[in-house]
């Protein structure tokens, strides 16, 4: 078990190293010039060249990458070009808000998605099933900014139940979590439904019925645990999806997280901040997958971590 964990952590480190390189190369190739952004519109060519030189932007790609990596290994993510602050400080200030939003959104999508999936499977091909599947279809297809604005308009502006934006109290979490979680809820409800239907047709359910067990017990003890197995791995992958959603949702709700930070940095070619946010989200995805792989054997005794 310890061996497995060490091996997986080493693998994760390698993956992250690969991601730093790919992201760095991509940002290097972007046609916008960060130096011109910093210098402003009225700056002379000499000033821009001077800034380029200061930032080391004239060095060859590999030299720049080596410099960045050396800093990263010492815990230094560099300084923002525009905000006059360490990237690590900027991220640290905003990360908690994003992480908490992610946790509440995951809970939201699992609760809504799995419940819908179970109910739809048990009511297969009946009215309840059809209407729930239409709901999940809408949840998957509607863009998040549309849902977010719609929810804001109805529940914050019209009804006044929740704050319009910002961050602080539990009430602030409700609308962003639902906006962020609805997409996943749509996916999970479909996956859980088909997984449940598959398990319901398996021999083990026939055995459970032949045992004379109650329907509730068959569903909760025999069908659901078996049906949820393929979904666990998906939750790990899902954190990646969240990272893209969080940029949109944080903008709509004025949420002070790293999504907003990333959005501002991208607009202004603030390369150290983009790199930093990318690294943070990549780490989250890698750890999410690792976590899913560690949880799976706790539920399924057939999986062994070696």
């Amino acid at each position, binding site marked *: 078990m310890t*061996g*497995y964990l*060490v*091996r997986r952590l080493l693998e994760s480190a390698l993956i992250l190293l690969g991601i730093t390189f790919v992201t760095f190369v991509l940002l290097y190739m972007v046609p916008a010039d960060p130096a011109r952004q910093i210098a402003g519109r009225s700056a002379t060519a000499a000033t821009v060249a001077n800034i380029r030189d200061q930032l080391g932007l004239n060095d060859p790609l590999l030299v720049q990458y080596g410099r960045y990596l050396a800093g990263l290994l010492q815990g230094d993510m560099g300084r923002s070009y525009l905000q006059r602050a360490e990237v690590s400080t900027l991220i640290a200030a905003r990360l908690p808000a994003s992480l908490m939003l992610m946790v509440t959104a995951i809970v939201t999508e699992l609760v809504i998605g799995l419940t819908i999936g179970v109910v739809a499977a048990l009511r297969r091909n009946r009215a309840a099933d059809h209407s729930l599947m239409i709901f999940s279809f809408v949840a998957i297809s509607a863009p998040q900014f549309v849902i977010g604005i719609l929810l804001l308009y109805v529940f914050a502006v019209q009804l006044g139940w929740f704050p319009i934006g910002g961050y602080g109290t539990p009430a602030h979490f409700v609308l962003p979590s639902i906006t962020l979680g609805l997409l996943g809820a749509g996916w999970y409800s479909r996956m859980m439904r088909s997984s449940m239907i598959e398990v319901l047709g*398996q*021999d*083990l359910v*026939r*055995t*459970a*019925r*032949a*045992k*004379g*067990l*109650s*329907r509730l*017990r068959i569903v909760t*003890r*025999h069908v659901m*645990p*078996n049906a949820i197995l393929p979904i666990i791995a998906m939750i790990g992958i899902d954190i990646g999806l969240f990272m893209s959603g969080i940029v949109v949702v944080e903008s709509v709700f004025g949420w002070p997280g790293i999504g907003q930070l990333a959005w501002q940095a991208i607009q202004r070619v603030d390369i150290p901040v983009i790199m930093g946010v990318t690294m943070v989200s990549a780490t989250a995805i890698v750890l999410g997958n690792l976590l899913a792989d560690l949880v799976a054997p706790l*539920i*399924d*005794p*057939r999986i062994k971590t*070696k």
Partner: protein
Amino acid sequence: MSGTGDTGRGGARPALEVRDLTVQVATEAGAKTVLDGLSFDLSPGETLALAGESGSGKSMTALAIMGLLPKPMARIANGSIRLGGTELSGLGERGYRGIRSARIAMIFQEPMTSLNPLMTVERQLCEVLLEHGACRRAEAPGRALRLLRDVRLTEPERRLKQYPHELSGGMRQRVMIAIALACEPEILIADEPTTALDVTVQAEILDLIRALQRDHGTAVLMITHDMGVVAEMADRVIVLRAGRQEEAAPVETLFAAPRTEYARSLLDAVPRLGTAPPRPTTPDAPDAPDARNVVEVEDLSVRFDIAGGLLNRTVARVHAVEGVSFHIRAGETLALVGESGCGKSTIGKALLGLVPWQGSIRIDGVETQGRSRAAMRPVLRDVQMVFQDPGASLDSRMTVGEQVAEPMKVHGIARGAELTDRCEWLFRRVGLSPDMLSRYPHEFSGGQRQRVCIARALGLSPKVIVADESVSALDVSVQARVLDLLAELQEQDGLSYLFISHDMAVIEQVADRVTVMRLGQVMEEGPRDAVLRDPRHPYTKRLLAAVPVPDPTLRRGPMPDTAGIEEASPIFPVGRAPERVTLHDLARGHRVARQAATAP
């Protein structure tokens, strides 16, 4: 009611009375009757067998009694099922809960998939005890342990804490039986309980059911396609055909003098060990120097690595096949026999290069060791394979004609009109009509599909056909016809077969020579009659003794307990290899492993 109404034993009141039971299944073409007016009684302590081929309605009967018919497709259209004083037909899900397991229990064909993989044996046993209030929560683990002892599981304390995947098929079926008997039901329905098990394990499970029945006076409804199992177990038999009762009789009467044509043909089609005619047409003389060897295998080993540890290195190996040598002459059938996991199928795959292997395999004199994929291609023309499940080995989205033509196209044998002609000719050879070529696999029956697979294999005019359990999934009457076809093709073309099977009676019918395998090694080999009629190795003897005899007057005594043998495994840590057995000659090519290394 043709004589089934009389109570089986001692005039006791029947435990179960089924009258005029009719089950219908909804299809696109309207309701289809799959069980038509079946009536029978089942008395306490009696075993009634429902026998028939696939589609005869025997499993539908069991599911109808248990209230487990697949809803909403199937329903009881007519008739009554009375358990003591309770009418079961029309009883709702809630009403059935007190019946299932508490009064009627059922075990199924597939012990592999019938248990919940996420729950320990103990929890699955306790669950049924507690659900029916058979004992208090604190007593449940103790009761569960006693149940495992009753079904004679080894190390019952350890088994309680294990999960189904940690148990062998036989052990899982014992757990299923323990669950079924937990609440001391009046009736046990066993739906093909041993069909998925090895023959020695089958014998043990049948023994167990008989012993438990004797101790508890349970009435057993045995559902099976296997007339050997019927002869072994039943007091009375009902032969079903296409949902209707064909014949009902006490077991001795049925086997001695079947009254209906169908029952007779069914019994005739059953391969019986020890009755196969001699095979004079083939070069049976074991030392015939003139017969050419089509396949020569020397020191063949197949090992699969099991990875693990920090750097994912190989920590153990499955020694699936270990130092096996054999040859097949032109026009000869070599049978590979053994229980699941003995490596017999792996040898077939090695011949076609489907698994990595070491040693030497020569096909028609050509060494295939070290050949690249491309260089293997001409060799593969000579070796073709026919698999167990014809449904799974045909592509459901291609017409059978395209599938028969495909290998010929790949090998550039024929094209255009010539290809069509050849496909039609192949179809006629395997007894199918050429105008079926444009149909899809689902339009064929199981036996016809296997004929398509044989036609596909014949397309390349191979010298050897590897037949891996090719008739095991077929009904006996169909099985007999496919075996006839294989024999006919052999006679006409001088084909050689490597016939892989677990079924001793089938092997006796087709084989010239027999090789008995266990844990990847050869235990005994030789001419058919020498191995099957005069077996020398204890393992061969045990295999033969376990085959159910389709004659109720020749019932066996209980099998010797073999709990220790079941544990042997072909998995060894890296650096250790299984001890190689050495074969020594008895006479006329009959060779047997020295027993010191393997005797239990």
